[in-house]
């Protein structure tokens, strides 16, 4: 099957006075139609910048400096990397084909317009054949879809009148308003409470099943990834460490970073009040990227004289999983 979205060897750099930050440093992955891809990684791993690159929203001084992002449409395959960020192609694509659910719904809605107005505006922008009245009816329908009670009244509410959970539901309604093929959810539940999070996650799952929308789910929460994604990409310092089906990632992780990350979270079943296995050291400063494999200074399995020198390539280690690590003989220097 042809992928819906394909990212190949993507590089995004930020040129600052103090030096150059390689925020995304050779990232590749595919999203199949209707797939839920989870991207997991700690702060600074480049997961959010990758998503902004997909939407051509990398702000200066950031710049896409290499690689290719392609998106499959009915009319053919679109090369996003060559499209002008402010051009008609990207503007038609954003919101309509690829929609974003941001982390902070409070900041994403304008406080001086009702949520309904803002969603109607998005609908009319991409579908000029609709009247305002029809667009409004569509918003009411969407609000019903995302499980908001009293949808007719909520259309005229301001974002600050809604609770965190309702605001995130309104955001999801807005993202779905143009029936996108790909939904990018950037930490959509980080700012809300657990019981509300459970409601929002269940809703996203239902909608995904109903509409068959592909979702890229970005989070640092391994629990959310395990429950939501069918396929997982693990990132560290701008590179993909490992990728594979969710069950393999959680039950047969191959990369030392994935393994260490999974061990370090306190579970709901393990022994309590005992030291947790930790990843030693700290994340390197972005100006101070280690040479070779970015994880080698913190890796318990680093091979002396190899990992500090050469950068491992992301290569298949099993039939379904790939990892960028020299522990697997297939990996050769990139």
């Amino acid at each position, binding site marked *: 099957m042809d992928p819906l979205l394909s990212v190949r060897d993507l590089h995004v750099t930020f040129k600052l006075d103090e030096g150059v930050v390689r925020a995304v440093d050779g990232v590749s992955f595919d999203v199949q139609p209707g797939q839920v891809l989870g991207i997991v990684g700690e702060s600074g791993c480049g997961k959010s910048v990758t998503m902004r690159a997909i939407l051509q929203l990398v702000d200066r001084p950031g710049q896409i400096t290499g690689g290719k992002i392609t998106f499959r449409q009915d009319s053919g395959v679109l090369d996003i990397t060559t499209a002008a960020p402010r051009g008609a192609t990207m503007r038609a694509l954003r919101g309509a084909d690829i929609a974003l659910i941001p982390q902070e719904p409070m900041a994403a809605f304008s406080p001086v317009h009702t949520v309904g107005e803002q969603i109607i505006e998005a609908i009319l922008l991409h579908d000029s054949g609709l009247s305002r009245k029809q667009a409004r009816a569509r918003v009411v329908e969407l609000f019903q879809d995302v499980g908001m009670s009293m949808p007719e009244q909520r259309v005229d509410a301001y974002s600050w009148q809604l609770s*965190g959970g309702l605001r995130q539901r309104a955001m999801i309604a807005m993202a779905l308003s143009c029936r996108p093929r790909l939904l990018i959810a950037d930490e959509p539940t980080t700012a809300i*409470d657990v*019981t509300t999070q459970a409601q929002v996650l269940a809703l996203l799952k239902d909608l995904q099943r109903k509409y068959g929308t592909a979702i890229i789910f970005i989070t640092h929460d391994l629990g959310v990834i*395990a429950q939501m994604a069918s396929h997982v990409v693990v990132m560290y310092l701008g590179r993909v460490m490992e990728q594979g089906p969710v069950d393999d990632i959680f039950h047969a992780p191959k990369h030392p970073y994935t393994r260490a990350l999974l061990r370090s979270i306190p*579970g709901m079943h393990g022994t309590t009040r005992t030291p*947790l296995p930790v990843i030693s050291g700290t994340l390197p400063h972005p100006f101070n990227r280690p040479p070779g494999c970015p994880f080698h200074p913190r890796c318990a399995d680093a091979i002396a004289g190899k990992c500090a020198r050469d950068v491992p390539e992301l290569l298949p280690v099993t039939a379904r999983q790939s990892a960028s690590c020299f522990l697997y003989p297939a990996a050769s220097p990139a």
Partner: protein
Amino acid sequence: MSHQPTPLLEVRNLQKFFPIAKGWLKRVSGHVRAVDDVSFTINEGETLGLVGESGCGKTTASRCILRAIDPTAGEIIYRTRDGRTVDLAGLDRAGLAPLRAEIQMIFQDPFGSLNPRMTLFDNVGEPLLVHGMRNRAERTDRVADLLRVVGLRPEFMHRFPHAFSGGQRQRIGIARALATNPRLVVADEPVSALDVSVQAQVLNLLLELQASLKLTYLFVAHDLSVVRHISDRVAVMYVGQLVELAPTDALFRRPRHPYTAALMRAVPVADPRETSTDTILGGEVPSPAAPPSGCYFHPRCRFADARCRTEAPALREVSPGHFARCHFAEQMAAPSAG
């Protein structure tokens, strides 16, 4: 835990109401019942976890204990280092001053809680100065010791906070809390702003320090797996009230309050094979300014009946050491395995 636990802190019927002012005359039209009749004990050397969702009053309760804010009613009985018992709620500024050294706080935000214009020496050393250590050389030695204790190099002493990562800043905040040799440390969401790998390091540090310095923790957090990991006993709050309090294992093995059970079910398990088919808790947390009648949880509770709508349940001991605020606590079944 020792066999004869000695209480260090006893909170009795703690209340904190915030007035709601309306109109230009700022007439008080009602109260937000942020903390509404909360009682618990923390024994010396133990960790009491305080969990709940945002707005449940867990932070307000901890701030009352620190007397960062003044409680509306209730007693906060604290046993001092020299064996006296005092009611923190009734003390004035002067009475509290000597006790401030014994009760310290670790904050959530490692970026906002350190003064960016002060070096580590000044940030960590300030409580020492406040509590009377005037000699600079003496302070330098103590700050160096404290940095070593939390796993930072003493040479960092003359740097500013911006040079450190989130995890390192949290260590600095812990060093500052330890400066005055506290006995009770109130930690409000100390790891929730940290990355997963750093979170484990800080949790381990807190456990180590507790053992070596005989610290007592009140650990306030929303993350159940973190609270489960670090606590001896756990208290669960909902709309300003304590709904359940039990030893950690008992609470997680068999929660006696439907809210606790729902909270546990809502945590996404980091294992794709463990998918919950259980119903998700619907509805939303009610406003503490206008809580529902009867049991505050009844509008969202699947076990609620007529009695729950009218009669507010009391917090009562269901089994030894296990308290729950539910009419049907005895009937709450253990969650099925997996």
